[in-house]
């Protein structure tokens, strides 16, 4: 902006000035892009609503409730016009400010206009994905929706599914308790000190390597079918559920042992030094100082392992345990429809989400406690 003072090379240099751009321009390209995206999304949305309306009419759902639902959908789908309007108004403000030569106002309004433009595009993109998913469900005369979400069948089989799901819950709750103990025992064996601990360390490491490598479904198959075949006294009389619990404990225990080990080794050595310097023995140090701190560090990965385990309980169907997945497959075969399997999926989702929230809440509360007083 400044006028050059001299053109010759050896003249004193001009003092440097901060250059963050002059008068901004209105974000026309962004506004046009937002308008284009919104137009496309609205076109697709209203096509879908029309298809839905036709489907409802065909199914004989011509009540006022159906029309109200459609009206709400239509209203929701035009909600992205709000940020678009704001983007447009902002764009107009920028032009006005530029016309008046007010750099500061132009920058402020341009920033707001750009924000609204991008917000419009972001929401429109999300709406586009959702609408496409709805299109998929309605495709082929709603065949997709009927295959996966046939509500009458879901409602009719729900009590049966819930009962079968209870088997999964039983299996994973018992397994989780066993895994917590077994995993810690294996982790401590992996960390057994000195020359005397060496055989234990090797054994534990071998166990973890073997069971982490084997597919869970194989272990379940081998234990569930194999042990009864061997006819070993006492063991052979266990129930099938007990076998799959043992199989899952062995598999998940290997993972959880590694998680424990990482947590224990993650506690700074100075804590061990402090505990040992007070005269606490190796085991006392582990029990009162190291493990309580290590366990706090591993709660998130432990929860991951547990949710994975909960899902893996669906694998027990391979040895014929009548769990929710097995039950749903029976229903699917009888009715030539997969909606009961969807029920299982929904049940698994429903139990997993609150656990993450609950654990996050507990971790936060514990952290707050350690920053306060007893």
């Amino acid at each position, binding site marked *: 902006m400044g006028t050059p003072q001299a053109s010759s090379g050896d003249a004193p240099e001009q003092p440097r000035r901060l250059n963050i751009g002059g008068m901004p321009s209105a974000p026309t390209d962004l506004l046009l892009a937002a308008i284009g995206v919104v137009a496309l999304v609205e076109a697709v949305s209203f096509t879908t609503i029309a298809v839905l309306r036709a489907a409802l009419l065909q199914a004989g759902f011509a009540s006022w409730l159906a029309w109200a639902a459609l009206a709400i959908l239509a209203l929701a789908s035009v909600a992205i016009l709000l940020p678009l309007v704001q983007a447009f108004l902002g764009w107009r403000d920028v032009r006005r400010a530029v016309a008046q030569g007010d750099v500061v106002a132009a920058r402020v309004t341009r920033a707001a206009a750009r924000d609204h433009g991008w917000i419009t595009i972001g929401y429109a993109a999300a709406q586009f994905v959702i609408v496409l998913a709805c299109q998929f469900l309605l495709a082929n005369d709603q065949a997709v929706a009927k295959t996966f979400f046939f509500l009458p069948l879901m409602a009719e089989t729900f009590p049966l599914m819930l009962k079968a799901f209870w088997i999964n819950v039983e299996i994973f709750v018992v397994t989780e308790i066993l895994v917590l103990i077994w995993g810690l025992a294996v982790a401590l064996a992996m960390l057994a000190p000195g020359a005397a601990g060496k055989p234990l360390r090797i054994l534990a490491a071998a166990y973890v390597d073997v069971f982490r490598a084997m597919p869970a479904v194989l272990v379940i198959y081998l234990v569930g079918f194999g042990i009864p075949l061997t006819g070993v006294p006492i063991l052979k009389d266990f129930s099938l559920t007990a076998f799959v619990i043992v199989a899952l404990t062995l598999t998940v225990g290997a993972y959880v042992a590694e998680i424990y080990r990482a947590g224990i080794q993650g506690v700074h050595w100075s804590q061990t030094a*402090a505990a*040992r310097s*007070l005269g606490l023995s190796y085991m006392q140090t582990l029990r009162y100082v190291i493990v309580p701190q290590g366990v*706090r560090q591993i709660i998130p990965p432990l929860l991951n392992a547990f949710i994975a385990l909960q899902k893996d309980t669906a694998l027990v169907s391979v040895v014929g345990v009548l769990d929710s997945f097995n039950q749903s497959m029976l229903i699917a075969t009888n009715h030539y429809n997969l909606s009961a399997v969807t029920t299982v999926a929904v049940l698994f989702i429903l139990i997993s989400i609150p656990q993450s929230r609950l654990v996050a809440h507990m971790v936060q509360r514990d952290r707050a406690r*350690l920053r*306060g*007083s*007893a």
Partner: protein
Amino acid sequence: MPFIEIRDISKSYDGAPVLNHLSLSVEEHQVVSIIGPSGSGKSTLLRCINGLEPIDAGEILIHGDRITGPGVDVNALRRDIGIVFQGYNLFPHMSVLENITLAPLKVLKQPREAAEGRAMALLTRFGLANKARDYPDRLSGGQQQRVAIVRALAMNPMLLLLDEITSALDPELVSEVLNIVRDLAKEGMAMLLATHEMGFAREVSTKVCFLCDGAVYEEGSPEQIFGDPTQERTRAFLRSIRDAKRI
């Protein structure tokens, strides 16, 4: 017979010598300051005395009893020798009171009431009674370090090892920690302190040792070491400390 006799001990980490034929003796009720440049082996020496680090050669005797080498019950040894670390090393998952009573309860098998009573008495004495229920994270560095000293004292040690206990503290918190050490010195608690607080070392010690390259380079009364050091390296070290205005 001296209280502690360190005879010609050596230690190396992966071939790098840290203690190199070091000898030192401490009398009953003596406060010995160990000064010297970083890497001279001060911390390692203290850690060897309570068995946190094994030594490679030499021996350490307490009341003529060998406390190094195989067959020594280090847990029993550590009951009677307390150590306080530069980084406090409080247990973050335990309240102040739990930190202090853990070892008396689990190691000395004291009844809970006795352990808590003694802990509260010590906390009260050092002005920390109102912190008993707090978790360490809530305390200032100076408070944490005072709790760490109380935790060591709760075991009623014969000897206290203080490993640069004020080095991690903000300057304004140093005095509250040093006041406790001064008190303990007056009571006759035998202490070995690795320190960079030269003024304090001069005031509180009965003997000062200048450590260099893993051995005691010069030792003597505080007046002699700080006022009239005989060795050139001691003089150079004290000069650099003085130049940094830390004396």
